[in-house]
């Protein structure tokens, strides 16, 4: 590990020299480069359990490319997307990444998919091109050349725990999630902040991922334990089933719920009749009232009409990836991984959800706490510039 880092530093110096030379050449041959598109491979969920995000992910990426191309492309080159499926097995993901590198010869890879596929892709890229991973994730990934624009557990928990305790008027938490790495890491962070405010964790429960889970018994336990807040790290269908049962048992009036992966599509599954007293803390909600978001959604409407897929933080991150890549590439003057990496640190870029700034390859960003109001979110608080808390 140490060894690798020193070699990276050395190659870095060389690349910087090469990079600054390139800037010179580029301004010279700028016109001809427009005809030579900059290829970006984008992993989206076309299949698999998260495939409901697929259409919106494609749309967000296309809008990102439009935006960047409208502003002169990246390094004077028009951006061209190659969409690939990130919803299959990790081995399929790795194979696709190899194809993107060797056959399609992409200059960068962006992706919104699960973490197992991410590790497989990183293994296939081996840090040869920049790779931007955009959805909510568990943190602690320092693979060479990778950047993370999604929410980290620290960002989701740091301010929301305190705020929600104030709203709910109590500091006792019941943690319920799916049994894999993201929920456990997120709950680990949550416990730190719960301790900080002097709260307590009443119970911590994990349900197997991919089983046909029933939540009645947990709901009975929650009712009898009477926590102030039910903190959920359930994903997808389990998130929907739990919250529908929770409301059907009439608990939604008495207990506040904070769900860590509750975006627009999951809320549609939970339904307006089951979303009372349900909160979500994410870096983006589709109905954010800001000029930047309005421009983003208008562009979507313009391109896809009324059939524009529902955006959410999971898909919108792919739009950010384009803005981020343009900002960094233009500062670096090159897409070389080492130069790119040096330029990325500390860079700021504008996204539909506000300004983001890269720190340790993760993004410092504004976080929003929203309360569900029927089938939509109502942002009730904005946490400015929350640190991702990663040390890469």
């Amino acid at each position, binding site marked *: 590990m140490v060894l690798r880092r020193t070699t990276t530093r050395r190659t870095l110096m060389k690349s910087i020299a090469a990079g600054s030379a390139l800037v010179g050449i580029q301004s010279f041959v700028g016109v001809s480069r427009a005809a030579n598109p900059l290829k970006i491979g984008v992993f989206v969920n076309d299949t698999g359990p998260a495939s409901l995000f697929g259409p919106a992910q494609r749309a967000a990426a296309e809008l990102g490319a439009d935006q960047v191309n409208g502003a002169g492309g990246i390094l004077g080159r028009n951006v061209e997307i*190659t969409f690939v499926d990130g919803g299959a*097995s990790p081995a399929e993901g790795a194979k696709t990444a*190899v194809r993107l590198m060797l056959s399609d010869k992409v200059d960068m890879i962006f992706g919104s998919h699960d973490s197992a596929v991410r*590790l497989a892709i990183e*293994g296939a890229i081996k840090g040869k091109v920049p790779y931007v991973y955009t959805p909510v994730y568990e943190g602690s990934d320092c693979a060479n050349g990778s950047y993370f624009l999604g929410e980290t557990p620290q960002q989701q928990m740091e301010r929301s725990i305190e705020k929600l305790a104030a709203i709910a008027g109590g500091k006792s938490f019941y943690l319920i999630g799916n049994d894999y790495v993201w929920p456990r890491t997120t709950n680990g962070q949550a416990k730190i902040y719960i301790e900080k405010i002097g709260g307590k964790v009443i119970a911590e429960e994990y349900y197997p991922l991919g089983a046909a889970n029933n939540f009645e018994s947990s709901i009975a336990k929650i009712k009898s334990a009477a926590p102030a807040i039910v903190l959920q790290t359930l994903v997808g269908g389990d998130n929907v089933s739990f919250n529908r049962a929770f409301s059907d048992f009439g608990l939604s009036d008495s207990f506040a719920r904070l769900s860590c992966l509750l975006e627009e599509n999951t809320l549609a599954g939970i339904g307006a009749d089951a979303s009372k007293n349900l909160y979500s803390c994410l870096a983006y909600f589709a109905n954010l009232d800001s000029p930047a978001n309005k421009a983003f959604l208008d562009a979507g409407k313009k391109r896809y009409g009324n059939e524009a897929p529902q955006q959410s933080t999971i898909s919108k991150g792919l739009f950010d990836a384009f803005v981020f890549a343009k900002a960094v590439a233009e500062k670096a003057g090159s897409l070389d991984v080492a130069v790119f990496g040096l330029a990325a640190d500390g860079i700021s870029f504008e996204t539909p959800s506000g300004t983001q700034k890269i720190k340790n390859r993760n993004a410092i960003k504004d976080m929003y706490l929203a309360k569900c109001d029927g089938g939509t979110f109502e942002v009730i608080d904005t946490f400015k510039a929350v640190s991702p808390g990663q040390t890469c």
Partner: protein
Amino acid sequence: MAFFLASSILLLLALFGLPLVAGDFWAYQLTLYYIYAIAALGVGLAWGQAGILSLGQGLFVAIVAYLAGYSLIYAPFGSAAYAGIVLAVMIGSVVAFIIAILVFRGRTESGPSFSLLTLALALCGYQIVGSWSSVTGGFNGLSNVPALPGFGGFLDLYYISMSMLVLCMSFVSWLFRAPIGTIWRAISENERRLGYFGYNTARLKSVAFMISALLAGIAGGLYALQQNLVTPDLAGFNFSGDLVVFAAIGGRSTAFGPVIGSVLVGALSSELRDRFPWWEIVIGLLFILVVLRMPGGIVGFLSTLLPRHRRKAGTAEVVKAAKRIVAKPADIAMNKIHCSVGEVQILDGLDFSTTDEKFVCVIGPNGAGKTSTLNVLTGALAKQSGDIHIDGILIANPTPAAIARRGSRSQVPDPFPISETEPS
């Protein structure tokens, strides 16, 4: 023979030359398909030959892939990693043999219950490796598995897995032609009868399952090497299902079938996946078409188109069957046999013995228990109490195979269903 040699050499040359012509990506992609093909070959062997359909074959791929991953990560020096992988493959096969022998003992079928059992085991494995993060890396998998010392490039791995595939295919086609192949096929058609012939069908089937897990294990070891990452999805429902699909589409009764299925379906889905959003419909239709119209898969279908050439049938002599018996009358004694099935008492304290007579006729009305008596004697029907002596020797737990090896032969009017399948 000359034709066979020439075509084999051409095929080998093509396999060697392919990555040089098609480029690095195809080398990488084909490596993965070859790995899947080796596992699918195992599914085809157990299913097409011995009639055992494993719906959880991914479990054995996963077990070996994880163990191989650990060997590569923790091996202090290069050859220890090799030894670790070989050991991992052996562990996988032994586990499979133990599972199979435990289940098949005392059973004369390998129907859906065994398939579902393998599926349940695989799902258990999936859940355990997924949850046990401290050891297995959990959902994200066992990452940073180093490459095999001395081999790292796409081409190296291509040639390694290609050679393994060719070796495995040769081994499997040798098994098909060997006597044990004939016996497996006979077992899948009429296991009871093979029992009466004196074959220990449970053990023979377990061997088939073990060899199929051996192939799965080889695939698992190669997988860890190629991917440098081992994830729980190997033990999941989808991967095991894919292996069955590969074997079925390609043709489960040949050595080429599963391989062609893996490469064809793999290449087709990877070409269609990112271009045609409804590609799964194509695969689904293809699959239904094969099940309905081409039970022999693509290879089976193609071979019906080709002019039929004589196939050398294997003979069953090498596997040690029942001792040749000299026609000598046996002294049979059955004492106080009780036998009932469900609520029906069939034999209630039956005493029956033969001495020097050459022929004994058992006569009785319908339902008197003649057949049941014979079935108890041959071990086909379990008795609740009483004992059986043949030539004065107590037969403790009669099974058809054990009785047959004692020299008792039964003529059972239970023919092999060669061409027609009876409706169930």
